[in-house]
């Protein structure tokens, strides 16, 4: 029977079926962080239980860590407490921890694939909704709650209904400063925040094949904003290249055996999906959100909606409310709206290729006066690589802040936030009310649109800026891994 890649991984991990539709799945990898884990550990302790497989469990600190100088104390006492609790729990339950000072610290969804903790064909869970990101390397990855996390700690399994499947086919090729981020924003705009509820999204098609692994992470990451249970892309040679030589990926004979298995993880011809959605990305323009959920999105040259265009009174009220919260006039052009801040960061868009894209746009240019523009690398490894390449000099010369890694303004649990009424263009994944701080006004966009907006101090169309070629960046260094996985794809290779 023809199977999808999801079904192949699913079938490989099902241990038991209960009732009509409840499956017990083995969990090959459990990633955990300081915010959603302490209560799960506490419950384990109370019940006298242990972590069944500490060797398959990895902890790190990302959600509420400061991104300023690591030598400074963590000022927020609650953040400090959660960080301490994670360190204590990792020690007590014998789990590997990448703590605040680890050279491998970073955002969990950047770190997993970058260290080879995430590989194709495994099941992976983490107490964070954006765990869907790991689907970009062909893992079946689910975001879970704290109680489910406790169940995984104790049993290394999870009970789950079999999700429905939706193929999201991206055809064509990106043109003119339009990127993977614009494609996923457009998909969510079309399908709505609930459009993929109950489904796993498998991204397919020519445009996905052509994407780098890091671009695929961007689309898988945001599938959750369309309601998807998770997302996945068939692993291919690009994924193998991304993982080869990473510290936790298989090596030697195991690597060869792994690749033989990974080669089988393709969606067969004739495999069935419950839903299908198809777009051609060739005609897309850069997208930006105007409202208070990721589906409230328009092209950067368009105007924000007018409430009276909506017949459904509930919809009309929602649009009115969002415009009011965002401080926008019905029907106004989005381009040219003055901004206070720009944030390049988050598990959506803070990998090395995102930073190189920003450098290509801002090299030799300046951030507008009065705009706070910050770059928060997705991991400390991304940061070190960028510094050896000399990217940070381009950013600092342009007037960006160059910070340490963490979730930062995307969730505003540390000091990085917008003030009440402040407007920012962010490369992250959520623009909910108060997301970047009480009263904050968030516009989501690609790194290129955010960078162009930083230069103008207004929401800007990146298409008006020429991009330096990779070679014109005059990078000071690049490892073979970076050449292969980051620079060559940007050269069109």
């Amino acid at each position: 029977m023809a199977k999808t890649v999801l079904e192949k991984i699913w079938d490989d991990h099902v241990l038991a079926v209960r009732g009509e539709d409840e499956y017990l799945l083995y969990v090959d990898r459990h990633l955990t962080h300081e915010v959603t884990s302490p209560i799960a550990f506490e419950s384990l302790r109370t019940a006298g239980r242990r972590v069944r497989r500490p060797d398959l469990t990895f902890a790190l600190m990302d959600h509420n860590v400061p991104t300023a100088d690591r030598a400074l104390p963590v000022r927020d006492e609650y953040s400090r407490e959660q960080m301490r609790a994670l360190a204590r729990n990792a020690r007590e339950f014998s789990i590997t921890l990448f703590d605040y000072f680890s050279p491998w610290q970073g955002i969990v969804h950047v770190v997993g694939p970058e260290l080879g903790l995430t590989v194709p064909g495994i099941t992976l869970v983490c107490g964070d909704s954006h765990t869907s990101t790991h689907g970009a390397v062909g893992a079946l990855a689910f975001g879970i709650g704290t109680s489910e996390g406790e169940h995984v700690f104790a049993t290394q399994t999870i009970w789950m209904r079999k999700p429905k499947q939706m193929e999201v086919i991206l055809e064509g090729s990106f043109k003119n400063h339009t990127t993977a981020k614009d494609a996923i924003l457009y998909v969510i705009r079309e399908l709505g925040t609930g459009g993929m509820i109950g489904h796993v999204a498998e991204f397919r098609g020519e445009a996905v094949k052509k994407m780098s692994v890091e671009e695929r992470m961007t689309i898988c990451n945001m599938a959750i904003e369309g309601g998807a249970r998770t997302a996945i892309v068939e692993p291919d040679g690009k994924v193998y290249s991304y993982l080869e030589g990473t510290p936790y990926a298989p090596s030697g004979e195991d690597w060869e055996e792994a690749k033989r298995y990974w080669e089988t993880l393709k969606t067969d011809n004739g495999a069935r999906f419950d839903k299908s959605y198809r777009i051609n990305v060739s005609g897309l323009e850069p997208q930006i959100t105007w409202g208070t959920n990721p589906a409230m999105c328009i092209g950067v040259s368009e105007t924000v909606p007018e409430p009276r265009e909506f017949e459904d009174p509930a919809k009309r009220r929602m649009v009115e409310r969002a415009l009011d919260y965002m401080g926008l006039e019905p029907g106004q052009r989005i381009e040219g709206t003055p901004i206070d801040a720009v944030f390049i960061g988050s598990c959506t868009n803070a990998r090395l290729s995102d930073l190189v894209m920003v450098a290509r746009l801002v090299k030799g240019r300046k951030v507008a006066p009065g705009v706070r523009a910050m770059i928060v690398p997705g991991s400390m490894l991304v940061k070190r690589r960028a510094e050896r390449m000399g990217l940070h000099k381009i950013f600092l010369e342009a007037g960006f802040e160059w910070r340490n890694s963490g979730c930062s303004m995307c969730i505003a649990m540390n000091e990085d936030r917008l003030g009440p009424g402040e407007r920012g263009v962010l490369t992250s994944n959520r623009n909910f009310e108060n997301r970047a701080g009480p009263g904050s006004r968030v516009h989501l966009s690609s790194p290129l649109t955010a960078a162009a907006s930083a230069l103008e101090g207004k929401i800007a169309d990146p298409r008006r800026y020429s991009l330096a070629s990779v070679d014109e960046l005059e990078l000071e260094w690049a490892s073979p891994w970076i050449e292969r996985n980051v620079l060559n794809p940007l050269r069109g290779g």
Partner: protein
Amino acid sequence: MPEPVRRIVGKAAPLEVDDVDTDQIIPAQFLKVLSRKGLGKYLFYRWRFDEEGRPREGFVLDRKEFRDAVILVAGRNFGIGSSRENAVWALMDFGIRCVIASSFGDIFYGNSVKNGLLCVRLEEEIVRRLRGEAAKGGLTLEIDVDAETIKLPGGGIINFKLEPNVKRRLLEGLDEIEVTLREYGEKIRAYEDRMERYKMPRKSGLPLE
């Protein structure tokens, strides 16, 4: 371990907002906790309090007629977004035992089941009608989990559907971990015995540049 949930009787409050994300149910600043308890005061915090923490007027759950509500009648896509289980803990600590909506965020729905918060999916039209009734104040509903029915004050009955496993969990209030280990321990061990080496993280890796 959640208590069994068999019957929920009480007042319904209307929440006439679609796409309520878990950031709205409880903002990120209240995730910095080490306990499940006491989160009710932060429920819908930004809608109930201003930037200085002063109460805002008029949020539905703070109005006199709805303060003792145990059922929330919402709209479409309730509980989308972040996986934070704190959203469920805050609702329950506040006294909410059931949320009725036409659809729910998947992770929120799963978290609710684990904690014994009943989520009832109904047709959008029925949800709208119930919300309208609730808005008048004083709508008391009687929900029977086993029978999968909602009894209206006039005696009318609305049927709903729960997945069998969800219903079982609610009715029994099981310690899931205990059950999994006891009944499926051998199957788990069997997988672990056959787990391929290439699926496991290597312990000693190459240093990265």
